């Protein structure tokens, strides 16, 4: 039993050294980021897509993909580091961020739509 306890303590290794990535993963992440940055800038500056709403949705999609690329290649996120606790913290934060952002925008949009005096509404876009 005593030896079991020691084995368990040893298996519970202390991860002071983390995966830092390699030159190739950093370069791959960098190249992907450059492309994922350049395309949205080009789309907005050239107005290539014509439709503003479509352009907005496309550049938001690019931003989400680039954030994931940064997470994987620069921040070395994975499900196993720190026994999965970093991933848990990340998921919790994403939930909070989504609630804060979508909740604020949703509530305030309806507040503006319903409460704004009519004569000021013409000034709104």
């Amino acid at each position, binding site marked *: *039993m*005593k030896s*079991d*306890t020691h084995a*368990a*303590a040893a298996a*519970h290794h*202390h*991860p*002071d050294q*983390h995966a*830092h*990535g*390699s*030159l190739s993963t*950093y*370069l791959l*992440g*960098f190249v992907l*980021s*450059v492309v994922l*940055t350049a395309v*949205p*800038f080009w789309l*907005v*500056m050239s107005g290539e897509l014509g439709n*503003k709403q479509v*352009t*907005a949705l496309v*550049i*938001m999609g*690019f*931003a989400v993909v*680039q*954030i994931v690329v*940064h*997470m994987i290649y*620069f*921040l070395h996120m994975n499900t196993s*580091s*720190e026994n999965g*606790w*970093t991933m848990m*913290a*990340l998921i*919790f*934060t994403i939930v*909070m*961020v989504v609630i*804060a*952002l979508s*909740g*604020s*925008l949703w509530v*305030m949009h309806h507040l503006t739509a319903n409460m704004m005096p009519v004569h000021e509404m013409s000034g*709104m*876009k």
Partner: protein
Amino acid sequence: MTISVKPQQTGEPLFYLADEHPHPEGWSTSLGFWIYLMSDCLIFAILFATYGVLGANYAAGPAPKDLFDLNLVAINTSMLLLSSITYGFAMLTMQQGRIKATQAWLAITGLFGLAFIGIELTEFAHMIHEGATPQRSAFLSSFFTLVGTHGLHVSFGLIWLVTLMIQVWRFGLIEANQRRLMCLSMFWHFLDVVWIGVFTFVYLMGMLR
């Protein structure tokens, strides 16, 4: 941690872990630092939400189209992206134990970061000179708060970077310094992640309005 205790048939005495076993110094630093970054993420989420709510209220003042210069923002973005990859190189050379190369990459990272702050301050000065001050409209208040908070983070990151360069210069790449450099690495890459949101949500979407 929990230790599963199997039912004892042999009559052996049971051992329980009354207190926590000793941990080496700094063993949980990266998890703690990650949780700090996540709390920082919530700060930025709230500032983004504020900008999202207020960002269209110009109070008959200037709109994003009148103020933003996308060429400048593109240059600024590339500065931050380049500083991210050079910090990555600093971490790689650190792992190989090459002190001078690490210091050189850290210095280059610092210069890119300084260029980013310089360009941002130029942009702010230009806007304020045109009368687009934070007091002008709700759009400008939320803009300066969001972009300014990010800029402050980068500025503190630069102070931290210089501090660590002095630490490495004095004590070398000891384990404590490696841990500190790893924390700053997470902080620096995280700021780049936030900037993706800023240039997309504030600048690019602003030009589409």
